[in-house]
């Protein structure tokens, strides 16, 4: 009997005879009975579908903002398109070719990725050049409007040659593109401080470069309206700049040269300059051989807990050591490093279910001013990237590329998990874009890996690095609080802190609290005498057994999985009784997990149990002290 007949029966669409037939069949056919009950269950659930909760009042308003932004941008684009048509003969051939390439590229991206959402990058570029072009229109000499850009350039050069020294065009372009050495940047900026028109040109070139990068990014992304708003910002800034430039007509020579700078910049991006390029005429500044390879960056270790080593170097890494391009770092514990201004990296073992790792390995593939690339061999890399420097973490075949962000990448063999707390990242595999994530988001390549719950924030990111080092001895304390911030201290701890007095609270392995003021300066050595034990007996917290049970019971299943995995993979004979000794800190977080056993235990099994137990979260113990409890476990393969 068909499903349709059953549906008709339920809907009352059958004749009496039909109904009787269905009922007779239902009474004796178990398959039909199940199909019938499935149908009824489905309908029952449909009838219970909840109504959506009421939409918030702010929805109208925020939609209005989004739509208004989209509208404004659309209009700007359509204006720009008109201008572009008029602009074409004004742009020299190289520029036109570049525009055409980018337009084709943008269209290809749009088509491949987001047919529903299109951003006209060509129009954006056009807007950019329209903005540039609008300046000569404001100039008192209307003749320049009909000139080509290169003509404008030569005219202006000859006009202003007596008035001011010409601008170092190529250097400006290199500056905007981040291709100058630090010394070169410095020199240029020092000169700009004395020459307002140079400062103006620098700022403008940077804006243009930013705008170009943003438009390229936008073309790569599936552009949502929210992003369009962001995209609009540099546009607005540029237009505002041009408006204010118009108000300062006395700088006409300078601004016209800035146009030349922008044109030269675009030209440089397109291809290496040839002698016949019209821009070469503008290149009049002979003392500017500044374009060199992107400078290398150092990564300085700002916090270290546990041990970290470099391949090919015997002694372990220490606080303040530098990591360089090509280094392969192995970390058992936790390492924070600062790369340049604004980028921080935390490297630590990952929390993998299958093969709990105890180390993390990361190779610094590229550490340059124009791009940072880390290759994650195993473990976790958490990053905070606050600069515009291209930044990527490569984990096996996957590449996680950043656009201003805080995120972490975990890798275990071929499995990769990404957690994104701020900003956005693009994940590609073998060069093919897989997904664009917008924070907050999680992604993983396979089910065997867990996505971490939070992204560790790399420490001492944008702070002054000349701070002295604060170090604690290994194994003495389970938990410390420095000026109210709780830090892990199990493996010893070294970190940069501001010089001066700090309030330290340290809880030792017996749960005894020590308190004191430590003065940290250059060459600080921890002296236990600076701490006084709290007068009372070791401060102990209290967690009621039922509270512990409430947290642990639902998670015993995960401990069982650790066992089953070891059983299946490596130790088919594994069985026995163990005691899990858990120390819970005063804040309710698990501080330490020890597995006590008489017999042998495979290390991956122990690590798995520890990692699982470390993820438990208890309420704050009563009495504000740590709590230690034992959890007896008996594993046996019988009955599985």
């Amino acid at each position, binding site marked *: 009997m068909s499903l349709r007949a059953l549906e008709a029966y339920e809907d009352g669409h059958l004749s009496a005879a039909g109904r009787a037939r269905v009922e007779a069949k239902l*009474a004796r056919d178990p398959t039909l009975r199940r199909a*019938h009950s499935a149908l009824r269950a489905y309908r029952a659930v449909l009838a219970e579908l909840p109504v959506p909760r009421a939409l918030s009042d702010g929805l109208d308003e925020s939609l209005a903002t989004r739509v208004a932004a989209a509208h404004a941008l659309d209009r700007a684009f359509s204006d720009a398109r008109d201008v572009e048509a008029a602009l074409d003969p004004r742009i020299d051939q190289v520029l036109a070719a570049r525009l055409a390439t980018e337009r084709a590229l943008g269209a290809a991206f749009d088509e491949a990725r987001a047919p529903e959402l299109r951003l006209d990058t060509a129009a954006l570029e056009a807007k950019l050049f329209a903005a540039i072009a609008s300046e000569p229109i404001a100039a008192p000499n209307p003749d320049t409007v009909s000139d080509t850009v290169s003509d404008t350039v030569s005219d202006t050069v000859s006009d202003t040659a007596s008035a001011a020294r010409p601008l170092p065009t190529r250097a400006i372009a290199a500056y905007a593109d981040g291709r100058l050495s630090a010394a070169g940047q410095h020199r240029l900026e020092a000169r700009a401080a004395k020459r307002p028109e140079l400062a103006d040109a620098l700022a403008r070139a940077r804006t243009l470069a930013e705008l170009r990068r943003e438009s390229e990014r936008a073309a790569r992304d599936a552009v949502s309206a929210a992003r369009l708003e962001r995209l609009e910002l540099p546009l607005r800034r540029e237009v505002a700049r041009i408006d204010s430039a118009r108000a300062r007509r006395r700088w006409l020579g300078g601004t016209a040269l800035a146009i030349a700078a922008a044109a030269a910049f675009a030209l440089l991006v397109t291809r290496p300059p040839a002698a016949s390029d019209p821009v070469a005429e503008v290149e009049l500044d002979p003392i500017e051989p500044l374009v060199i390879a992107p400078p290398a960056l150092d990564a300085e270790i700002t916090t270290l807990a546990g041990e970290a080593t470099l391949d090919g170097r015997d002694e372990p890494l220490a606080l303040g050591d530098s990591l360089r391009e090509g280094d392969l770092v192995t970390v058992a514990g936790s390492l924070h490093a600062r790369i340049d201004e604004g980028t921080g990296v935390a490297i630590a073992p990952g929390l993998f279910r299958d093969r709990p790792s105890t180390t993390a390995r990361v190779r610094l593939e590229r550490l340059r001013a124009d791009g940072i690339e880390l290759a994650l061999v195993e473990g976790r890399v958490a990053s905070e990237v606050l600069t515009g420097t291209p930044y990527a973490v490569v984990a096996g075949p996957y590449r996680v590329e950043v656009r201003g962000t805080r995120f972490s990448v975990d890798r275990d063999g071929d499995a990769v998990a990404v957690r994104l707390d701020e900003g956005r990242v693009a994940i590609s595999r073998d060069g093919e874009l897989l997904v664009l994530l917008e924070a907050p988001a999680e992604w993983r390549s396979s089910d065997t890996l867990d996505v971490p719950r939070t992204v560790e924030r790399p420490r001492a990111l944008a702070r002054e690095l000349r701070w002295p080092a604060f170090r604690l001895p290994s194994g003495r304390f389970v938990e410390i609080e420095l000026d109210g911030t709780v830090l892990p201290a199990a493996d010893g701890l070294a970190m940069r802190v501001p010089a001066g007095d700090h309030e330290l609270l340290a809880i030792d392995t017996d749960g005894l609290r020590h308190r004191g003021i430590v003065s940290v300066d250059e060459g600080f050595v921890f002296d236990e005498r600076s701490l006084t034990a709290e007068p009372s007996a070791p401060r102990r917290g209290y967690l009621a057994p039922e509270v512990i049970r409430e947290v642990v019971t639902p998670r015993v299943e995960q401990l069982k999985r650790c066992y089953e995995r070891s059983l299946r993979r490596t130790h088919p004979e594994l069985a026995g009784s163990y005691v899990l000794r858990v120390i819970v800190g005063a804040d309710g977080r698990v501080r330490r997990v020890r597995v006590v056993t008489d017999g042998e235990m495979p290390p991956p099994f122990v690590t798995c149990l520890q990692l699982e137990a470390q993820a438990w979260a208890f309420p704050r113990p009563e009495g504000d002290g740590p709590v230690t409890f034992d959890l007896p476990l008996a594993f046996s393969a019988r009955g599985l």
Partner: protein
Amino acid sequence: MSAASTDSPLTIFGMADAPERPQREGVPERAAPAEAIDPLVARAKAGDAAAFQALFRQHRDSVARTVHRFLGPSADLEDVVQDVFVHVYRSLPSFRGDAKFTTWLYRLTANVTKMHLRRARSRPRFADVAVPEATDDATAGRPDELVERNERVEALYRLLDRLSDKKRTVLVLHDLEGLGAKEIATIVDAPVLTVRTRLFYARKELYAALAEEPALAALMERFLAELPGRPTESEP
């Protein structure tokens, strides 16, 4: 004949419009705009911001309902509703009035939601994320009943996640949203017969998988027990 169907009552079950009005089933006709576009839509299409706002007010709740039907318990409801209207704003100029505005809106909503689901699918979902549903629901019973009900609804959406996009769209629009097969045909741009076939197979897959969800299996057992008669062999 216009492709836009008449306002049939929203029947949840059975393809109410099929037995009563047998007709040739084929690709929905793309007739020239039979009726003039709703003046409000026309004004919004011409760029009248106030008209767009009125359009939003008029349709926001029904869009929210449809989105909610597609997504199930989800924290993203408002985001998706907003996305739908941003798309409406951008696509309105291309609305030619071939279909009713509401049908067009359904199509857009279905597409935006589908995109959202695809994006969401590429990230893992925590199984235990509980999204609070309407608490002012008058039909809400005792807390434990509410929990059970929510479990069943979540289970249903897990099953829906296993359907293909096409089947899911048709099933949600027909069974959950109560649209007729003809209107769905216009929305998904497929022949009515295809819509019925998709619906049939979608339901079949759902029924077959129902027992795999404990919350729904329990309900099935209850209905089984209510059935009169005795099967000839013991139930599996």
